[in-house]
């Protein structure tokens, strides 16, 4: 085979893979929300009141600043670490993979120290608005413990990446990416069993309503559970979790503390059931899989000039790419997430046919979380995993218009 035909074959394979990637991304992007749905303008001022709106905007703006620090600071710290981190190789008596693990852990440790002042200030802000109940010492100890878990995670990652790189050279990503996808699959499956979910006692009417809604949405039997978060936060939330037999809906205790009416809570449950109905956790895994291959390929190429992932010298650079890539793809990840959330809202409306409960719920969300219902576009792009409350209310109004409500 000549050089030019080899190049042509390579281009064809790359083209086929890129085409497959785009086709899969397009398929995951589709939702059941009518594509011609026009969202009307919503006057949030009239819905939540001028003073509460001002409070929410002030709170969200400062929180966004902390968010920006949380995005930029790790990039700066890890960029510096990518340049200088190899100096810590002298602190290791382990072999290449053990030294790689040490370098990765130290990178995260330095990042933890760099982020600590900003995290404490953010906690102060959240406590000031009564959104979080966690104390300062509890937060520091909590993030410290979390750092231990992160150390384990990064050590496993380094073991996989460096292990395969030492076996397969720069082609490690072809095997490494599927391994990470398998781990993500496993974590998603077992998450409901690790989340401390409790049975939902004293809410038999809600449990019955959930069964009724589940039947209506055609998702089979999905247990409704309680997540006790009352000692940590006042923010309300719920989540769909698990795959197949491990599917659950976890309702935060803060949503059952009397601030929300029964129809509002039923709307929340219908929204979470919709995530299961549309296989959103599987879609999330599919989305992750697309990017797992991309990031693994990128890391394999970027670290090549440092000897590739087989040597610990490349680990600080690996750590930088490992964090920078998800930051760079955050806007598209958030856009994907917003589409799934909008679809879940739409399906919840179809199932409950109770737009008033939906509207009341989203207005209550503004009051209880202090989040700006209509933030600037950059806020949604960087941090918006859900549509804004204004967009959610607008969707309800659009649904009402279509359904003669």
């Amino acid at each position: 085979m000549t050089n030019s035909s080899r190049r042509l074959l390579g281009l064809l394979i790359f083209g086929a893979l890129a085409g497959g990637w785009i086709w899969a991304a397009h398929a995951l992007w589709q939702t059941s929300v009518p594509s011609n749905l026009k969202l009307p303008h919503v006057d949030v001022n009239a819905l939540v009141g001028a003073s509460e709106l001002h409070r929410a905007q002030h709170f969200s703006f400062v929180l966004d600043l902390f968010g920006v620090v949380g995005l930029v600071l790790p990039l700066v710290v890890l960029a510096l670490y990518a340049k200088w981190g190899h100096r810590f190789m002298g602190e290791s008596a382990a072999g290449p993979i053990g030294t790689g693990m040490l370098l990765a852990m130290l990178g995260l440790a330095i990042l933890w120290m760099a982020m600590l002042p900003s995290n404490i200030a953010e906690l102060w802000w959240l406590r000031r608005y009564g959104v979080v109940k966690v104390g300062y010492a509890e937060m520091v100890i909590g993030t410290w413990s979390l750092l231990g878990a992160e150390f384990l995670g990064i050590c496993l990652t380094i073991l996989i990446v460096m292990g395969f790189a030492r076996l397969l050279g720069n082609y490690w990503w072809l095997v490494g990416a599927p391994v990470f996808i398998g781990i993500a699959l496993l974590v998603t499956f077992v998450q409901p069993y690790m989340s401390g979910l409790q049975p939902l006692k004293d809410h038999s009417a809600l449990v019955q309503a959930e069964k009724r809604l589940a039947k209506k949405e055609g998702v089979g039997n999905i247990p409704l559970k309680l997540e006790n978060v009352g000692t940590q936060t006042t923010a309300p939330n719920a989540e769909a979790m698990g795959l197949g037999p491990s599917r659950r809906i976890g309702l935060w205790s803060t949503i059952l503390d009397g601030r929300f009416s029964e129809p509002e809570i039923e709307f929340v449950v219908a929204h979470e059931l919709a995530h299961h109905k549309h296989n959103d956790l599987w879609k999330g895994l599919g989305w992750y899989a697309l990017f797992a291959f991309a990031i693994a390929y990128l890391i394999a190429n970027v670290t090549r000039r440092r000897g590739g992932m087989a040597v610990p010298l490349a680990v600080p650079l690996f750590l930088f790419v490992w964090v920078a890539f998800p930051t760079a793809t955050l806007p598209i990840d958030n856009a994907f997430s917003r589409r799934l959330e909008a679809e879940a809202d739409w399906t919840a409306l179809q199932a409950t046919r109770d737009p008033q409960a939906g509207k009341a719920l989203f207005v209550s969300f503004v009051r209880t979380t202090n989040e700006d219902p209509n933030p600037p576009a950059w806020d949604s792009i960087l941090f918006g995993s859900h549509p804004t409350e204004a967009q959610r209310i607008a969707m309800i109004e659009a649904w009402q218009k279509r359904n003669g409500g």
Partner: protein
Amino acid sequence: MNEHPVTLHVMDDLRRSRLTVFFRFLLAIPHIIWLELWAVVVMIVFILNWLVALIIGRPAKPFQRFTAAFMRYSATVFAYLFLVANPFPGFKGEPGSYPIELVVPMEPEKQSRLKTFFRLLLAYPAAAVSAVLMYATYAVTFLAWWAALITGRMPRGFRDLGANMLRYSGQVNSYAFLVTGRYPDASPYVGMSFEAPVAAEAPVAAEAPVAADAPEAPSET
């Protein structure tokens, strides 16, 4: 007076990295988990080895080597955790890889069947002494952590106490797990050897990027 077959070789320069000292406990977590997993297999191996030693009068060679590697490895992990040494240890327990090294006999020796039969019971008093030493080391490590964090050096007395604990517990475990038939020696002067490290500073990696075909360190996780 260094007659015990299990000895601790100390080649530490007392220098400590403040960063790794600050995060020492968390950095040791992967090792602690690996140690626990390894210990499960060591327990199974011990039962088999115990039966072998009762039958043929000495432990089996592969079991001896496997258990010896575990003893060496556990000494490096605890040396790291208790600030007795500075570098991050390897995961294989290879000889000559760490400034604090438990030297353990690799060849099995003949052992009394009667003592082998009652081995765990016989080791119990020494294990109790070892536990007391361990608790004392916990307390000292707390003080040493502050000292190392502030000065960047480990006080010699604290380091030597930790080293002695490692030496004694290494002898206890080696006795309990049939690596040696010799009972642990409580004297801090038996089974210890100190040696100045070859270089005061640990080698610092070159700043220039390593080429793809650069020679690599021995394969180890």
